[in-house]
């Protein structure tokens, strides 16, 4: 199987769906010639033209609102909000209008649209270009929230998102675009709402998504050497959440760690923790552990940013803590 980058995988999904279905189109700021801030839409203007690869005005609420309107009358818009930080400007449209429209009509309409955006830190992009805000979205009934961690998932989930008749918030990570991984040439789809066990293990269930999944898999390798076996679950879709896969794993491992890049307080990890504390508390032999960003705006200074964001070492430390083992000095975790 060939390898693609996460960026290419997203692009390929967009291209395939644009080709397959004439009612699909893209709108967003600077997605045409400029190909978006992270060049995801490169080449699409040339193939599909300006009608279907539409630069908007600089107006996030117009982007989201226009996507809703267009979705109501038979097209399937894929809107891009350049950074999830800017999506705060569109939240009335996304939370009050898009999320509620179908329910409000008693089910008379459907709202088939996707909002693609990207978040996350690690690039010294500063406090308005680095946030992880998925938790805001997961609180709102009516939305589906997808956060892929690999090129394979990104492609398969985006295709499913575009074909789904519900509004999907599709959150990429700027730190993943250059990561590569196997993506089949043949068409495939990944169902929304299904987690995947990315690594089997027996001591600790680690739930992680987006870029944090990669950190967790790396940490798992180190931990393996020290006799701690992580079972790593990628929910992939945060809303609706595949609770069963998580609960089954915790039943097996009796320990739960959650890893995400969003601020800890009120992050999506809290929801996962709460679900397990409600439905699987008897499985647990240890406190639940959240490894997440410190509760801080993202500082510009890269060292501070590193400090604020969760990293491999934090995961390793957390795992030792959960198993009650001492951290070997050679690991130099400080």
């Amino acid at each position, binding site marked *: 199987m060939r390898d693609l980058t996460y960026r290419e995988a997203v692009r390929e999904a967009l291209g395939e769906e644009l080709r397959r279905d004439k009612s699909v189109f893209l709108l967003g700021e600077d997605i045409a010639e400029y190909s978006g801030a992270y060049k995801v839409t490169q080449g699409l203007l040339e193939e599909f033209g300006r009608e279907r690869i539409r630069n908007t*005005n600089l*107006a996030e*609420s*117009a982007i989201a609102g226009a996507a809703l309107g*267009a*979705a109501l009358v038979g097209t399937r818009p894929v809107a891009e909000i350049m950074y999830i930080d800017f999506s705060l400007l569109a939240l*009335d449209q996304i939370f009050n209008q898009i999320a509620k429209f179908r329910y409000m009509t008693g089910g008379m309409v459907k709202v088939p649209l996707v909002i693609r955006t990207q978040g996350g830190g690690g690039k010294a992009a500063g406090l308005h270009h680095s946030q992880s805000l998925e938790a805001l979205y997961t609180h709102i009934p009516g939305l589906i929230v997808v956060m892929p961690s690999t090129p394979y998932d990104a492609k398969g989930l985006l295709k499913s998102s575009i074909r789904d008749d519900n509004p999907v918030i599709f959150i990429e990570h700027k730190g993943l675009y250059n990561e590569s991984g196997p993506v089949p040439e043949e068409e495939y789809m990944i169902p929304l709402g299904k987690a995947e066990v990315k690594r089997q293990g027996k001591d600790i269930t680690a739930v992680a998504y987006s870029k944090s999944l990669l950190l967790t898999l790396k940490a798992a390798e180190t931990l393996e050497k020290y006799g701690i076996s992580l079972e790593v679950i990628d929910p992939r879709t945060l809303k609706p959440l595949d609770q069963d896969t998580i609960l089954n794993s915790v039943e097996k491992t009796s320990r739960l760690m959650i890893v995400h890049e969003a601020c800890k307080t009120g992050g999506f990890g809290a929801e996962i923790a709460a679900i397990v504390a409600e439905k699987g508390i008897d499985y647990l032999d240890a406190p639940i552990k959240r490894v997440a960003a410190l509760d801080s705006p993202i500082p510009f200074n890269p060292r501070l940013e590193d400090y604020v964001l969760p990293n491999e070492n934090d995961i390793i430390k957390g795992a030792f803590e959960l198993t009650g083992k001492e951290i070997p000095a050679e690991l130099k975790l400080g």
Partner: protein
Amino acid sequence: MQKIGSEKLKEIFIKMLRIRAFEERAIAEYRKGILPGFIHSSIGQEAIPSSVCAFLRDDDYILTTHRGHGDIIAKGAKFDKMMAELYAKETGYNKGRGGSMHIVAADLNMLGATAIVGAGVPIASGVALGCKMQNLDRVTVCFTGDAATCTGAFHEGVGLAAIWNLPVIFVVENNQYGMSTPVKYYCKLEQLSDRAKAYGIPGVTVDGNDAEAIANVASEAIDRARKDGGPTLIDAITYRYYGHHMGDPGTSYRTKEEIEEWKRHDPIERFQGRLLKAKVITKSEIQEIQASINRELDEAVKFAMESPEPRIEDALNNIYCPSA
């Protein structure tokens, strides 16, 4: 009375009568304490949607606001399903989930009623975009209030319509107040239609209590939009007789004199006078129409009252639709 034929004039007039009667009945029901939630009456403003919608095709779209009963009726909504929605019944347009501020009649291409002021504007641009992309020659009318023109959503949505030359008409039902705040306070312009100048689209202010004047302006704008001539902003000046909603007497920020003065320019009376004079309609015809409207309303209220409530078992239906 030049360009508009008498059939059309009559159609507009009947729409106005229907709106007034519905609104009066809704208020009466509300005052009995039976209707849940808020009612924002559009009494006094009937000429605007009646004239505008008279020039729309069935497959054209409209969007409206919290004060939308009139607009919805003008597009052809049924009294029974509307009244049932006000009663929060399963037989209402939204199956009782939406209420007065959220009525959607998708079968009439009436795409709601948002209660977030200004939020309909970008959505309307999107509807027009969707039509344009599918080469449908449908026009979208977005009704908004005057104060809605202050919102960021208005600016962004009209901005988008302007640059993509979308077939959408923004009709400001300018009742001169946003809640208690007079237009003169929140906008320093001579006329609100000058806001169009920020987008390079035509903007026109019209007497919103003069059905024919609106009809002329609206039919032209609709025509232009249908011929790919792009959006128009219509500012139609009118007045609401009641308070902001039925819980507001409407007099802490408006004088009784001002209200009385406006009632002397009642859009229905004015139009009726002209139609009678021009013999487009007769007094007895009007009486008959009103009687029939009242019968329809009696039935609508009966229908609403007798309709079932939504079932608790269905409470969580339609938050999502089944995945494709």
